[in-house]
């Protein structure tokens, strides 16, 4: 009996324990012991904002060969990133350039044929989606630059229709049509919840949350006037006061948005706009040397002409134009401007200088606010230090009356730093630009960055794009095909 009582008691005790179980206390919150967020905690190290010069535009078009050497890609590579960790809107050959080559046709990049410059290929508009190699990438690109973008576009444009210049590149870089669009007005400071669907370049940068941003914007605000042949502030050039307001909104919002998103101030490199110190703008004397003397029928703009635009080479080759003075503004034939007078050049130079002064002012404001850490890269000054040969158009290095030898092509390709469109650098030129950014970054934030420079000598540029050079076009010399000239006339489109 005693054993039975003991057994029952033990079993009852055991049962009570079984039914009771034990419960778990809440763990203490340990997050207070964590270091505050810093650059290493950013969801991506680097994002680039800009226009064609940042996108890797080359030979008047966007194509993977040029994009692989965009300055942001080169910079990212030196930072230890790769094509998976630094993404771009890759475009397959023959690339996407101008829509000016025919109804529903998209020109590819230009290439050198041996005597002339011509599109590498032309793609029907309804097939252009097939060239977009990364269009369904489900995250924002790291290189968000859109050819043709203005400072206003950087904040506001999310597709072709919302861009100032009706630029279709926004459609496949911002991708509002693919991933939807929710317009979040940028006014009023940083966006509360930036999303992929808030498609502007600025919004996507906030969404991406980088530790470092490069901002090279404003060239189209000034050079749009230069390409028109009649630069007029307020008409085809953004007034400096407007530019300053737009840039102030952009940089303050960018810094504020990123410091809010990341919890630490972003580092932002602001690059100044370029001037007209580019092969696209041919000094009158050089132009007349190339065409074999002064144009017998003169210039529409008169004797004050200082610069002749590059596509004019095609215009003068057209015998139908003999007997007419070289036009001073956009024409139906060459699709763009032809000449700039001394007064017009001064407008361009002064406006660009005003933009750069505004940028300096705004950078100081943001640095003073503590929301961002900004540094300035004076690209205009940087490029002005390139040698004359480095700024000479490749075409002018070719023999005018015979086919060039392979050595002559290679020698010229290794000399000039500009691509065939005369505005955008070639592979090696972008390498130099990347090194300019790297020097700026390393100097501004030595505690965070020690990025090795790009080995520019290892970058090569082939202006033929692998296409065997053809026969000499007897009697015409080196020049441009009409299609190439039209493509260049809409060089940022």
């Amino acid at each position, binding site marked *: 009996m005693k*054993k039975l009582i*003991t*057994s029952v008691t*033990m*079993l009852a005790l*055991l*049962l009570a*324990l*079984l039914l009771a*179980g*034990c*419960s*778990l*206390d*809440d*763990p*203490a*919150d*340990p*997050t207070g*012991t*964590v*270091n*505050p*967020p810093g650059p*290493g*905690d950013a*969801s991506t190290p680097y994002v680039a904002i800009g226009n064609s010069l940042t996108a890797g535009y080359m030979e008047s078009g966007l194509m993977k060969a040029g994009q692989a050497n965009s300055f942001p890609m080169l910079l990212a590579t030196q930072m230890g990133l790769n094509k998976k960790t630094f993404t771009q809107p890759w475009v397959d050959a023959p690339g996407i350039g101008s829509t000016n080559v025919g109804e529903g046709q998209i020109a590819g990049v230009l290439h050198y044929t041996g005597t002339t410059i011509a599109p590498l290929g032309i793609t029907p508009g309804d097939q252009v989606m097939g060239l977009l190699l990364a269009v*369904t990438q*489900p*995250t*924002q690109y790291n290189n968000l630059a859109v050819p043709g973008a203005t400072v206003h576009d950087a904040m506001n444009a999310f597709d072709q229709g919302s861009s100032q210049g009706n630029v279709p590149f926004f459609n496949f870089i911002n991708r509002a049509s*693919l*991933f*939807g669009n929710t317009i979040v007005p940028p006014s009023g400071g940083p966006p509360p*919840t*930036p*999303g*992929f*669907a808030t498609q502007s370049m600025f919004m*996507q940068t*906030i*969404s*991406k*949350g980088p530790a470092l941003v490069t901002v090279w914007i404003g060239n189209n605000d000034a050079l749009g006037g230069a390409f028109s042949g009649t630069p007029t502030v307020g008409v085809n050039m953004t007034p400096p006061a407007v530019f300053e307001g737009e840039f102030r909104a952009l940089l303050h919002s960018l810094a504020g948005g990123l410091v809010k*998103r*990341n*919890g630490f101030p972003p580092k932002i490199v602001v690059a100044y706009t370029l001037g007209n110190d580019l092969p696209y703008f041919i000094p009158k004397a050089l132009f007349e040397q190339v065409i074999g003397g002064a144009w017998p029928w003169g210039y529409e703009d008169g004797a004050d002409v200082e610069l002749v635009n590059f596509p004019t080479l095609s215009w003068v080759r057209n015998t139908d134009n003999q007997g007419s003075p070289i036009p001073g503004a956009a024409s139906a034939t060459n699709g763009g401007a032809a000449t700039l007078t001394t007064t017009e050049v001064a407008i361009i130079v002064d406006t660009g200088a005003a933009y750069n002064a505004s940028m300096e002012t705004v950078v100081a404001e943001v640095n003073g606010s503590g929301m961002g850490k900004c540094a300035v890269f004076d690209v205009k000054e940087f490029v002005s230090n390139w040698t004359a040969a480095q700024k000479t158009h490749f075409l002018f290095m070719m023999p005018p009356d015979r086919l060039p030898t392979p050595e002559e092509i290679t020698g010229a390709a290794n000399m000039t730093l500009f691509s065939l469109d005369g505005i955008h650098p070639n592979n090696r030129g972008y390498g130099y630009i990347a090194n300019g950014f790297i020097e700026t970054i390393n100097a501004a934030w030595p505690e965070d960055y020690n990025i090795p420079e790009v080995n520019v000598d290892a970058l090569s540029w082939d202006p033929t794009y692998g296409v065997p050079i053809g026969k000499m076009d007897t009697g015409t010399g080196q020049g441009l095909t009409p299609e190439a000239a039209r493509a260049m006339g809409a060089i940022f489109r």
Partner: protein
Amino acid sequence: MQKRIICTLLVTGLLILSSGSALASGFSIYEAGSKATALGCAFTATADDGSALFYNAAGLSFMTGSRAEVNAVFVAPQFKFSGKLNKSDPTTSTGEAESKVYPVPGAYYTNNNNNKLAFGVGVYAPFGLGVVWQDGAEWVGRRISHDVQIQTVYVTPAISLKLSDSFALAAGVDIAQQELELKKYTPEPATGENAIHSTIKGSSSINLTPSLGLMFRPNEKLSIGAMYHFKKTMKFDDADATLDPVAPGDDPWGNTLVGGLGGSEQKLTSDLNLPDIMSLGIAYTFGEKFKAEFNYVRFGWSTFDKLALNFENDALDQTIHFNYEDSWQLRFGFDYQASEKLNLMAGYVYDKTPQPLVAVSPLLPDSDRNDYSIGALYKAGKWDFNVSYMLVVGDERTNIEDGEPVRNTTDYPFGTYSSLANLFGVGVGYNF
């Protein structure tokens, strides 16, 4: 009668196996029997009931007659979390796993009517996992997992040869099959809002590996045993993945992504490695009524280094890295014969986690554990009944080192995980 009982017990066991399971270091479930659980699963040198087919099949040679039994250990795990998604996250989040009870079954038949050769077959579940976080769509770790279920069934037939009165060797075959289900959310990259809910579900093909045991009993008081189960690779050759946009009509990002991947329904293959298990045990009976046993158990968890999910659509391929390390357990069991019919049992376990800190995640926040167990066995004629209780106390784990999250990503939350489990076991056996 004997056949009916055997069939009834085995079918009962198989039915129980269809339910979920969970727990133990890594995701092993060492509690193959309720009586063994009461002894802290220090059972390799004793192995005197059907669960010997797992703990040491050589124990069959020291049993008499035929026996059938069914066990169920009901595991009630608890997991809690406090931390953040990333360093920029302004708010601290907490999380708690749903209160679920997972039955871990065991059904066994043993026969030692021949003094030389004994045999048996067992059905049990030595590996399993179940972690379902409350409010899965809001849970801070939902990008890794909000619901994971792994169920592994072993069927082990074994024979044991008694080479002498004191020594036996056993060999068996572990026939295993596994079910896996993993659910998580993929966020819209910028906003962090849930965009796609994905479910991966699959059944492995059947895997066969050997198991071995030996038992040495030089006298009535001392027993020494050892067992070894080989490592396994469970192959999932035809698993399914479903990618569902969370807001199908109002989510261009999710719809575009799923559409670009070829639709919601995807196929994948994967291999999941299970560790080898080795146990060395020694038991000694003090006086007439008190027996103590000690086991050293080693798991070859280093084989569980990753789970590669290979989709037909390569864009979806991903590898979950676990980087587990080999681990060990120290198990102590104590059995007191209170009367001819009643035994009282207790046990203690120190269980070293195989999980490195970097792998602590919502999938399984594992930790070193201390287990405490008690139980009782009651004999009534040919029948015997037992009950057991085990408390598993996991150490807290904080995946922060030197002020930095060990895994500083946008998907893995950092903070402190805590865990605890209550195990309730019951078993019934019939001796023919």
